[in-house]
């Protein structure tokens, strides 16, 4: 297809426009995060960086103990991701490489979990977690999320594409199931694991409702709740400080995103195939 010069220019104009629409709120946030309260409120609005950068970031960091919140979010996101990957790998291995009684039934049960997102069971889930004494603890934010139908299905699909000959060959070599799992299957699944990790990490990092209910002390809050805490604690809407907090808290998932963009794309592609 041949493009004329006009079409190329039009394409770029439209794309730049789209980029602007999508990026503008964040660009603004970054600019505002450098401005003092007076600069934010000046009329007409200043759209250039201001003079209060260090102050704002410092204040945002200290007011709601953002470091601690980011640490919490990080611990939770990483632990959930690791647990989910391990459990899904194991159950996918069971479903693909073994024949056993009740297989269909177990598979069906995993399927059913797709129908039970947190809000559907939140009333009693809260009681269960409370019963374990896990309210306001890492355990309450991590362990209930370890089982994943999505992860299991993803790995089942991946495992199915592994050539049958590999099993037969390894069986000939006297390889036991778990040896086969660790030596042959896992290395072949690396990129799928990577993709699931990135997606799960961001999903958990961005979670809001459950951490809001399951934590209550300032030291156990996560970064998403921190944003609202920051907005409430800034007694007079000092947007410079709030936006500094916003910028800090979106950095980890963004960095992850830009560094592992390809894993992302793969993860996305896999998701839609489940």
């Amino acid at each position, binding site marked *: 297809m041949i493009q004329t010069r006009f079409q190329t220019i039009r394409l770029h104009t439209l794309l730049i426009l789209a980029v602007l629409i999508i990026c503008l709120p964040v660009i603004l946030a970054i600019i505002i995060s450098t401005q003092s309260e007076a600069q934010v409120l000046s009329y007409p609005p200043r759209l250039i960086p201001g003079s209060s950068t260090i102050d704002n970031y410092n204040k945002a960091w200290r007011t709601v103990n953002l470091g601690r919140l980011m640490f919490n979010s990080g611990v939770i996101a990483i632990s959930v991701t690791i647990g989910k990957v391990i459990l899904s790998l194991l159950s996918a291995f069971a479903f693909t490489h073994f024949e056993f009684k009740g297989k269909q039934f177990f598979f069906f049960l995993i399927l059913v979990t797709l129908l039970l997102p947190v809000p559907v069971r939140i009333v009693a889930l809260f009681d269960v977690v409370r019963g374990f004494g896990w309210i306001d603890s890492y355990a309450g934010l991590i362990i209930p999320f370890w089982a994943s139908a999505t992860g299991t299905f993803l790995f089942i699909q991946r495992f199915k594409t592994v050539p049958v000959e590999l099993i037969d060959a390894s069986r000939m070599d006297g390889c036991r199931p778990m040896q086969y799992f660790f030596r042959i299957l896992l290395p072949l699944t690396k990129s799928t694991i990577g993709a699931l990790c990135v997606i799960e990490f961001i999903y958990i990092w961005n979670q*809001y409702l459950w951490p809001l209910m399951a934590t209550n002390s300032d030291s156990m809050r996560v970064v998403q709740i921190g944003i609202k805490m920051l907005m409430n604690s800034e007694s007079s809407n000092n947007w410079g400080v709030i936006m500094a907090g916003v910028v800090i808290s979106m950095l980890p998932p963004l960095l992850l995103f830009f560094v592992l963009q390809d894993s992302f794309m793969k993860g996305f592609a896999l998701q839609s195939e489940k």
Partner: protein
Amino acid sequence: MKSSSFKNPLLPYVLLIPTFLILVVFLFYPAFETFRLSLFKVHPYSGAERFAGFYNFKKIFTNPEYLSSFWRSLVFAVTVVIIGLMFSLFVAVLLNQKARGMKLYRSFLIWPYALSPAIAGALFNFLFNPANGLIGYFTGVRTWLTDSSTAMFIIIIAAVWKNLGYNIVFYLTALRNVPTSALEAAAIDGAGPVRRFFSITFTYLSPITFFLMVMNTTYAYFACFGLIDVLTEGGPAGSTQILIYQLYKDFFVHSKIGYAAAESLILFLLVVGITMLQFQTTEKKVHYQ
């Protein structure tokens, strides 16, 4: 499943134990318990239960607040899906052209995926806030979030904006899989680019469109909680109170446990409906491949 498998009577169960332990304790039991509680009146302090039959459901369906929240959520989801998908498809088509710098454009167009709904809420709060929002300064209209006829509009824009990156990626991947041969054949038949798009490309995109509809609907129903909590807390006058926010308040703030459990059951039925749609799409997709 696999024709060749290991022979070990115990190992598969051992492998499944961790997953099912979690499933039973944190999914099946709480879900069952929630559904059971929907049939009870629960004392807000002691937790004492009294069987109440369908009392809670009767309350729900005669509560005009809940009903309007039900329709509001539906309108919200449908709008987010339509606007979101149209805009992302448009951008994806642009991105699918051959020109310089496409990879860079792509990066800058899909990264909002990594942002959270709560962050989207904070950003839009800054833009539209009635005391000192930026858009208020520019337009002279400052009631964006305090007027019940415009607040939902802002929530929709914010929700669509946040999910653009996600939608664009999927459309882009799908567009790349449209066989060029089919397009070329149509071009030879004299079809213009617009007709080519709607007659050929769009057909190939329909499975992914269906998938995205389902994902965006779930997003609008559940994940937008953080966005609303940061931006409007369901106000003004309840005009942005969607079902999930209603559930949060009834359960967590007002301790109406039986009533909230009944609300959960209704959400469950919605999820069942959406998931059935999803399975249907998966089958359709198989047909196309």
